[in-house]
Structure formats: structure tokens, C-alpha cells
């Protein structure tokens, strides 16, 4: 089944087509979400939400972009929504610990299962720094670094120009350098 046929079958409510879609794209969706939320269980839950949304809204998909681009967009949006919720919870927890009602959470570095063993420790530090980037820089950096996407594909997903993606990547790297500088000067 090619992409057009797959979309048509999905719009007809064909369950086999939906299974094919999930089988084909589950790892891509999972890895994208995981790169952003940095939690294995949460990434799976969000990936489920992504496919549920696809199932419910595929009738409105007009094929203006590639199916993968559409999936990336939904995955990124859902992952960022979850991150925003987590951040506001964290702020509340920090406030509670500040007024003495709760304990302060220790920052734990995330270990991506696809990272080479030698780089586990350093990548954990990098993932923590990535969490502090502004959203657009974070999306561009994560998609390029963890999904290995080209600048053109990221531009399509984010609905911006390739130049804008280049600028986002440049700023992301600069910001990460500053954050890592800060981290290493406090941990030596």
C-alpha cells in the first residue's frame, strides 16, 4: 500500500491500514517524543496519544504534507504540551520546597537507549541542558540530533524556512555552550 492508498484506507476506517501505520511509524514517533520528554514511560503514553489523535483526525488530513511530516508535527506538539504541564508542576514543587512544604527534587540525567555506551554520561548532561532551551531551538536541535533529520525536513515540520532552522541551530548550540560552561564550572 503506498502513502495515498494508506491515507484513503485510513479515512475509510480500515483497521488494517491503521495497524500498518502504527507498525511503520511507531519507532519514529516514540524516538521523537522521547528526545523531548526524556522519560521512557511518558514517551510511550504520549506516543499512544499521538496515534489516537491520528485515528480521530485522519478524515481531515488533505495530504498537503507528507504523512511523516504530519506525524512529526503531532508528536512534537503533544510532547511539548506534556513538557509545559511538567514545568508548571515543577514550579509548584519548587515553590513548596521553598516554603518548606516539600522536598527539593534531585536532577537526574536522562540516558537515551540509543546512545553509544562511551557517550552515556556526556549525553545525559547534554539532555539536561537541552531541557532549558527555548522551545523552537529545542525542537530543531532534538529533531536534527536524535532523529537525524535534514534541515529541509525540520523546516517543513516547523513550517519555517531552512535559513530559520540554521539560525535556530546556531542559537541552540550557543545557548548549550553557555549552559554547559556553567555546569562544568559548578561541577569541578
Amino acid at each position, binding site marked *: 500500500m503506498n502513502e495515498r492508498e494508506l491515507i484513503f484506507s485510513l479515512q475509510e476506517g480500515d483497521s488494517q491500514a491503521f495497524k500498518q501505520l502504527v507498525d511503520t511509524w511507531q519507532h519514529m514517533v516514540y524516538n521523537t517524543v522521547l528526545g523531548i520528554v526524556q522519560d521512557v514511560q511518558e514517551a*510511550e503514553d504520549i506516543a499512544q496519544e499521538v496515534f*489516537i489523535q491520528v485515528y480521530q483526525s485522519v478524515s481531515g488530513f488533505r495530504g498537503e504534507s507528507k504523512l511523516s511530516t504530519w506525524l512529526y508535527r503531532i508528536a512534537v506538539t503533544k510532547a511539548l504540551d506534556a513538557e509545559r504541564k511538567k514545568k508548571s508542576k515543577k514550579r509548584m514543587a519548587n515553590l513548596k520546597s521553598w516554603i518548606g512544604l516539600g522536598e527539593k527534587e534531585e536532577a537526574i540525567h536522562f540516558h537515551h537507549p*540509543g546512545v553509544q555506551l562511551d557517550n552515556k554520561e556526556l549525553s545525559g548532561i*547534554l539532555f539536561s541542558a537541552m531541557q532549558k532551551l527555548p522551545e523552537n531551538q529545542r525542537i530543531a536541535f532534538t529533531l536534527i540530533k536524535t532523529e537525524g533529520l535534514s534541515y529541509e525536513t525540520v523546516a517543513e515540520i516547523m513550517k519555517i524556512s531552512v535559513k530559520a532552522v540554521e539560525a535556530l541551530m546556531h542559537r541552540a548550540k550557543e545557548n548549550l*555552550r553557555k549552559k*554547559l560552561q556553567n555546569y562544568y564550572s559548578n561541577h569541578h
Partner: protein
Amino acid sequence: MESNKFTQQKIEDTLNSLDGISRAEMPSFFYTRLQARLAPSSDASQSFWLVISRPAVSLVTLSILALLNIAAINYVVKNNQQKTTETNTGIQSFANEYNLTVSSMYNENENK
């Protein structure tokens, strides 16, 4: 100077630590778990509660209930008023017929 160089090298190594990363794979039987999560949404009773719990639906239902309450109270109050005036006119006509009105007694006393 040496330490600064070391830190800069460490920063660059950290920035490049995702090179050669492979895609994380979804744990097995994801589709089965996804199907289990999709199933309740097609259940009729579940979708009924989903519709009911929508804020717009709850607001409209509450407004209709409030309007019905106001209409019922209005009806009861009006009915009571009508009954009171009916009883009043009954007593009045009886009093007039037998000349038992307060004013007539007062007038009689005055005449004496």
C-alpha cells in the same frame, strides 16, 4: 589556562555526544496496548459521559434546569395570589350581603 582548555574540550565533547545515536525502539506489543486504550472511546456509555462532562453541555443543562425552576416558582406564586383574591372576594361579598363590614359597624356607632 589548562583548566579552561580542558573545560572547552569537555563542552565540545558533550555537544557531540549524540553523534552516532541510534533510534530508540518502541517497547514490544505497543499496538495491543494502543488498541486497549482506543477501545473505551467507542463504548456507548463512555461517549455519553464524555458528552455530558463537556462544559458547554453542562452549562446549557444547568441553564434549562434554572429556567424550569424559575417558571415553576412563578406559576406557584401566581396561583397562590389568585386563590387569595378569590377567597377575599368571597368573604367580602358575604360581609356585604349581611352588612357585616367594619365600616358599616363604625357608621352605626357614629349614628348613635
